[in-house]
């Protein structure tokens, strides 16, 4: 693999890793607060459809992003209502929401646009286009660094940088603020938080709001930046890969960046069988590469690479003692 090819693959990695990163951070907030969220996929799908539809109708990518976040928030709140307020089973609620999203997105898009559950192709201001970061020109003459900066770092859409910025922000929020301490505590030992006089219910809902917003951005990125419009099942299991990445990252923000970018890299390299063959001098079937994220996660879960311990109160609805 020569340097130019590597740069192309890394650029592709960042593009494909971004929706995984956003969804993974979304899952991080909710699981750290003790709410398992298998419905990341459904929320992303709803957001993708809403942002694609609104961007097509208004011609504004920003309004599309807003609509995507709202749609995802609605689903997050339904999940909250079912699993926090009514203390239902979190996994069942999440799976149910995924099914609803799978059908509802196609139904709504078909009713609005009559294009077989697809939203019309977006162009111009209705999409987030790649932006060139300052200094691309100045660095272009520098060997190695110049092309790396121009192709890998620069030239992505704003939402990619937003996702990257969300990593340190999440770390700071979770590990350096009072809110973060309480959020983590509510996922480990909600009784102690309750004893301290802080509302478990409110904290968990707040976590789900953050989850909703991040899933909304992820969906909008799929429909208005990565692609030009929504298509049926366009998230294609990314919500589940993000959950795998979350386990792989052991519920930590910086690890989440590493895990999602690794999975993004695997997706990117799977698109270049010629590169794999040239580097390893053997053919690897594409499905084997597609399965790697899950295999890696199983290896982590089996305890080969340290231990992955989920938040202790995860999956259990909180019942106040009387």
């Amino acid at each position, binding site marked *: 693999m020569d340097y130019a090819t590597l740069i192309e693959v890394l650029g592709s990695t960042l593009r494909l890793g971004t929706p995984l990163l956003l969804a993974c951070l979304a899952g991080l907030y909710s699981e750290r607060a003790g709410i398992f969220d298998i419905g990341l996929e459904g929320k992303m799908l709803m957001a993708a459809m809403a942002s694609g539809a609104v961007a097509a109708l208004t011609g504004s990518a920003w309004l599309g992003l807003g609509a995507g976040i709202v749609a995802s928030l609605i689903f997050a709140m339904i999940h909250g209502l079912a699993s926090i307020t009514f203390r239902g089973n979190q996994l069942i609620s999440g799976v149910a929401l995924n099914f609803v999203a799978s059908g509802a997105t196609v139904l709504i898009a078909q009713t609005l646009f009559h*294009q077989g559950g697809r939203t019309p192709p977006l162009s111009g201001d209705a999409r987030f286009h790649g932006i060139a970061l300052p200094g691309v020109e100045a660095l272009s003459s520098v060997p190695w660094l110049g092309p790396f900066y121009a192709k890998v770092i620069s030239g992505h859409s704003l939402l990619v940088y937003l996702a990257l910025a969300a990593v340190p922000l999440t770390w700071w929020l979770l590990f350096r603020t009072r809110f973060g301490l309480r959020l983590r505590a509510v996922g480990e030992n909600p009784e102690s938080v309750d004893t301290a006089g802080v509302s478990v219910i409110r904290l968990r809902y707040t976590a789900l709001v953050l989850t909703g917003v991040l899933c909304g951005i992820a969906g909008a990125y799929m429909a208005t930046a990565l692609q030009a419009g929504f298509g049926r099942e366009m998230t294609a299991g990314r919500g589940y890969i993000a959950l795998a990445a979350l386990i792989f990252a052991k519920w930590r923000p910086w690890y989440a960046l590493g895990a999602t970018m690794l999975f993004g890299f695997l997706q990117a390299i799977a698109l270049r069988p010629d590169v794999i063959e040239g580097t390893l001098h053997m053919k690897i079937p594409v*499905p084997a590469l597609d399965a790697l994220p899950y295999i890696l996660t199983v290896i982590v879960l089996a305890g080969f690479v340290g231990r992955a311990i989920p938040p202790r109160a995860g999956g259990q609805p909180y019942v106040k003692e009387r």
Partner: protein
Amino acid sequence: MSMTKYLLGATAALALCAGAAAADPALIFDLGGKFDKSFNEAAFNGAERWAAETGGSYKELEMQSEAQREQALRRFAEAGANPIVMTGFAFGDVLNTVAPDYPDTKFAIIDMVVDQPNVRSVVFQEEQGSYLVGMMAAMASKTGVVGFVGGMDIPLIRKFECGYAQGAKAANPDVKVVYNMTGTTPAAWNDPVKGSELTKAQIAQGADVVFSAAGSTGLGILQTVADEDILGIGVDSNQNYMHPGNMLTSMVKRVDLSVYEAFMEGTDLETGVIVSGLADNGVGYALDEYNADLVTDEMKAAVDEAAAKIVAGEIVVHDYMTDNTCPVE
């Protein structure tokens, strides 16, 4: 409930028309969907043309998963639909088992040969049309690299790729053809994100003309072609209108005509195998106001000459499906 409704409807219609061709035809779309702007949409357009001209109505169904195929066929057959037309090779096996159970119903399948007495099989000589657009791609390419992105990795799509490569090499022996398949499952017909990334990867390898033969995945491929300002080639339907200025041409396959003709013949559908190619305009390249500026006179002359030679038998384009090999890389 709905079954009863259909049966009642069919009985009533039979009673009214007393033996005349009363049954509505039916059309089943393969995965990828009715509005893929390509293969299935061509079939839909053919059916719509029939409906507009005859004032008739037809039943239709979009496949959502593999498991529905047999159920869908049997449902339509039992509801009295006749003829039943289906798009896509994937119906082959199912139709082979279902067709003998309904000897009075006529079936038509596109892109596959099913050897049953009540089935019409329509297959196209895609290699011929692909050969022509391959020539155009090689002539339009400035980098000397042309790309091909296929949908599901099946012999049929290899046939497109092989014809394309042969045409490209014929126009310019030094041209390099890079090709990728989107996947190995039917989901590969409906993965625009992957199509888009594959196209970006091919552009990175120097390709400046990309032929998309991938159903709905092609929407992502052609979008990227337009975003990156290179040239794209559409497939099955005439897709030139999608991105004017970036669409070199489209390899059209007259699926619409096949559906239209099958519907027109109705219950008197003649069964057997129909092979449609350049000679009867079943395949070809699209030229319209959207790509007129991109197709030079030289290009058009060369392609038309090659087309004439293929029809006359002077050029024989190798069909990948005859021996599952391609003479050119």
